[in-house]
């Protein structure tokens, strides 16, 4: 962040123009990275599909047509031209359902990451900056959460809250947030420990700024790059987690359409209808791949230190 500060020798006009030029340079770097570009294109496409889903579906995704049960995709033997990716056990159009499924996957993914980020950053900044008993408590909680695999943690929470009833979308977002704050706290806390030793923090303290103002005004902006990169990378993790929980029957419940539920349904018809389990999985893979490539590129540009 500090490296973007213009040099003293620059004219005032250049200083005003600097951020814009830097933005352009970053875009240029995206063009030089084919995988980053591929990721950005996929992310853009998936987001467009999510936003336009109800307008662009070729069929009503919930319309049951028993005469058109288990129709194979268009290129397979017995396929029909009206259902490009075939139909499911109730005669519903697979392509339309995948398109509409984008919404839940992405929305739950984004909400889950946001919740994890807010919690994780709050705990990371406060524990790193304030130290003392609070830091000790947060660090112990980190160790404990690291010892429990995500899915086991989710099972414990969902087991207590119950699978049926209530707002299962909200519950899912809560579980995803609860399971993913750890990584944000760990990274942010580490960075805050370094940032708080810097001179400008010392200076802010010397002029009598309050702790919360220093945290918000001086510490947080300096760890922002890592937070952005980490959020982008975590979206892929959370999308897979959502699909897994929905697949296990613990996430969003039918009749809401998600890729995980479609996969679970498709599993029961593997012997006769391969396409039911194949295409939703492909949709997940392509979406997640997009976020991974985009996130990796963002990391290389904004914060190369996070590279493994």
């Amino acid at each position, binding site marked *: 962040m500090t490296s973007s500060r213009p040099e003293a020798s620059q004219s005032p006009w250049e200083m005003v123009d600097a951020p814009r030029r830097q933005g352009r340079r970053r875009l240029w770097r995206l063009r030089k990275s084919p995988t980053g570009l591929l990721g950005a294109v996929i992310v853009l496409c998936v987001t467009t599909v999510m936003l336009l889903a109800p307008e662009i579906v070729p069929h009503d995704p919930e319309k049951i047509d028993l005469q058109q049960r288990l129709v194979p995709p268009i290129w397979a033997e017995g396929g029909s031209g009206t259902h490009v990716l075939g139909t499911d056990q109730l005669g519903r159009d697979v392509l339309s359902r995948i398109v509409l499924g984008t919404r839940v996957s992405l929305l739950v993914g984004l909400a889950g990451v946001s919740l994890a980020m807010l919690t994780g950053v709050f705990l990371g900044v406060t524990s790193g900056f304030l130290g003392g008993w609070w830091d000790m408590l947060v660090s*112990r*909680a980190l*160790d*404990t959460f*690291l*010892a*429990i*695999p*995500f*899915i*086991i*943690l989710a*099972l*414990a*929470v*969902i*087991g*207590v*809250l*119950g*699978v049926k009833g209530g707002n299962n979308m909200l519950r899912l977002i809560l579980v995803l947030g609860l399971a993913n704050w750890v990584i944000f706290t760990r990274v942010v806390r580490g960075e805050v420990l370094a940032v708080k030793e810097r001179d400008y923090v010392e200076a802010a303290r010397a002029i009598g700024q309050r702790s919360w103002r220093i945290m918000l005004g001086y510490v947080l902006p300096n760890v922002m790059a890592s937070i952005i990169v980490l959020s982008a990378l975590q979206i*892929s993790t959370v999308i*897979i987690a959502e*699909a*897994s929980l929905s*697949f*296990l*029957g*613990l996430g969003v419940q039918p009749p809401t359409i998600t890729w995980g539920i479609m*996969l679970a349904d*498709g*599993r029961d018809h*593997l*012997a006769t209808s*391969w396409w039911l*389990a*194949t295409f939703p*999985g492909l949709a*997940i*893979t*392509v979406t*997640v*791949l997009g976020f*991974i*490539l985009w996130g990796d590129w963002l990391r290389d540009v904004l914060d190369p230190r996070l590279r*493994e």
Partner: protein
Amino acid sequence: MTTYLASRLLQMVPSLFLLTVALFVLMRLGGDPVMHLAHPEASPEEIAEIRAAYGFDRPWPEQYWKQLLMMLRGDFGESFRFRSPALPLVLEKLPATMELALVSMLVALLIAIPSGLISAIYQNSPLDLAVTAISTLGRAMPNFWIGIMMILLFAVYLEWLPVSGRLETTSIVLPALTLGTSVATSLARILRSSMLEVIRQEYMTTAKAKGLHRWVVIMGHGLRNALIPFVTVFGLQMAWLLGGSVIVEEVFAWPGMGRLLLNSVKVRDLSVVMAGVCVFALVVMATNLLVDFLYTTLDPRIRYSS
């Protein structure tokens, strides 16, 4: 060594304490335990009687203490589904889960070590690009989908292997491949980057200059040093693998702890859920401890005296 072991075990205590507190709070959030014990038409007086008899009218810290002592004795209460103590039910399924986890880890190592090595030695060759591309793709594929696709290919179309269950010896092949490949991708990536770092070290040049055979240099001097960061990630991946086993056990109907836990969650058999979570956490902690000891054999510079 013994002092190190003792200090590591002591470090586990606060984590375990927090875990039991979290489980206690979660169980209380799950509803009034008295309601599970009383019959549906119990009068308020009867309910109050049960509450006093089981100590549920006592302050929370006291209740927690009582429950902690019970947990330490291995008493997690009774499963209402099986009408028997919860912990033995979970432990009975532990061997199946460990068997799957160990075989999967072996599969992961057999895939990750050669591919990570080759892609580091032949950096930027087509072979390296292929390994990198496949491991990126592996990161993007959910493991349950890989499992379903394997069933489709090997069990439904080729009919080489059984679809699910644990009746034949070949039953473990598909679940272990599924779980193993999903871990292998990240392990191969780590080995590649740590090997690339090691290759640039001076002792590698020295070893080459001594006239040692190429593979002696790579295996004896290179791999051994590259394995140190690899082992760290290996420990973390073991936790991930145990979590992933829940999903893979469900896909392949493998009769392990994960499946028992999942089915108990669905019917809210809370005592089994809590016992299962505790056993999983303990297994993960024990694995991490084991990984720490692997360091000493790999790197004699690390001695656990302090």
